[in-house]
């Protein structure tokens, strides 16, 4: 047990006295940026794909769009996110000669990836809304897209908030792969501390704890939102 106390002491020295915590804070910030940007981009893309997926297909344009969307979803759900990240950073970006920072590439790829998953969640949400809502809006002379955006999608979003919370948690956890392209997150910060002390036990333990606490907090917030939404069903 004595050696464990010593390890903690060493960790504390680098973490606190040598300023390791600033790296951890940066990592935490980046983790949040990537997860939040990923979710926001994901919701936008996912909503668009879901609307295309449920729209009537007797015209040619929706059919073509739907095929493109299916390819998109197939790619992003059919390959690991690490692979997508590497492809984007080391293949696509050099091809286009673009100079994006690792952090913004991560945000983009996380967004594209979660878009594929959110689209499936969203499709379920839209299909769970009573078709009469759409009919009523159409009967008033609103177009398909306007009825969708003003009436159906808001109700669908309400139905899927808990599932979206889970998606956010998945994103938070997945951020631990961004070091593959050189973005710094929690993992990078703690392995820096570890390699400075030649001692990885305590840093990784603390890292695990931070992730668990983060996820627990988010789960709590999601539950609170869910409860307040349920309350609004009965508001007077």
């Amino acid at each position, binding site marked *: 047990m004595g050696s464990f106390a010593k390890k903690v002491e060493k960790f504390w020295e680098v973490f606190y006295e040598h300023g390791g915590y600033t790296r951890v804070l940066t990592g935490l910030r980046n983790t949040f940026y990537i997860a939040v940007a990923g979710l926001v981009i994901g919701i936008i893309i996912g909503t668009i794909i879901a609307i295309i997926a449920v729209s009537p297909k007797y015209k040619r344009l929706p059919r073509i769009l739907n095929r493109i969307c299916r390819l998109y979803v197939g790619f992003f759900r059919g390959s690991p996110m690490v692979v997508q990240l590497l492809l984007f950073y080391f293949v696509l970006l050099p091809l286009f000669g673009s100079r994006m920072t690792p952090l913004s590439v991560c945000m983009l790829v996380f967004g594209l990836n979660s878009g594929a998953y959110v689209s499936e969640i969203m499709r379920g949400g839209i299909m769970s809304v009573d078709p009469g809502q759409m009919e009523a809006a159409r009967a008033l002379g609103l177009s398909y897209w306007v009825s969708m955006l003003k009436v159906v999608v808001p109700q669908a979003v309400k139905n899927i908030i808990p599932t979206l919370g889970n998606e956010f948690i998945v994103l938070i956890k997945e951020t631990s792969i961004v070091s593959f392209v050189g973005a710094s997150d929690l993992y990078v910060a703690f392995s820096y501390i570890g390699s400075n002390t030649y001692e990885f036990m305590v840093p990784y333990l603390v890292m695990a704890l931070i992730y668990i606490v983060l996820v627990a907090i988010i789960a709590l917030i999601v539950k609170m939102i869910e409860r307040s939404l349920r309350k609004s*069903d009965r508001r007077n």
Partner: protein
Amino acid sequence: MIDVIDLRKRYGDLEVLKGITTTIRECEKVVIIGPSGSGKSTFLRCLNCLEDPTGGEIIFEGVNIADMRVDINIHRRRMGMVFQQFNLFNNKNVIENIMLAPVYIRTQELRAKKIKNFFIRIRNLFTSNKKELYEINTTKAKIIEEAKEQALKLLRRIGLEDKAYVYPSTLSGGQKQRIAIIRSLAMNPKVILFDEPTSALDPEMVGEVLDLIKQLADEGMTMVIVTHEMGFARKVATRVLFMDEGQIVEENTPEELFSNPKHPRTKEFLSKVLSVH
């Protein structure tokens, strides 16, 4: 006002409407009765193309709206529709339900005019024969204000102005249906289609909804009503259509049709329905 010519609708092999021809004139109150599965609801939903007809024509204000190339949304604005399940928007409160379509459509028209004016202005810079601008005498705020005023007026009419800011889930069926009716009125329609407006209501709420429909009828609104309320049909209708198996079997004034049906199917149906009451 609405000319229906040989209207047909089929789902796969099942032909639901087998050629319906009729004319709905201004101020008429047409009530459609018939056994379930006779296609009366489908017929009504075809009138504003909620179901696309697979054959025939529907001439509304001189335009064949059964034609897929027609922008149906413009014509639907002149045709209200009231559903069996009310279909109030659950995510909006009562007044938003009423205002949504009028506000959206009027602001859309305003925006279209503004965009056209913009291009006309640019064009006028380069040519000597100046084109006149579209007249714009409203703003978005004014549109919302007017729509709100109108919505409150309509709510006052049915005595529900105190419910303006509550959500539909807190209302009774009768209140929901009356609000659904004034929601379609807010678009100033030429005709209102009622799809079994009282079938989903508790018996004690049927009266209030029928009273409102009767009021509108007396004010001269054109109506097409699918209903199972024979007493109401007799009171309101100027013409009753009896439908069976996708066809109009018999049509007549309510007095004639109810007391003196000609077709054996009509006789059979009426004897079954009226003996219950």
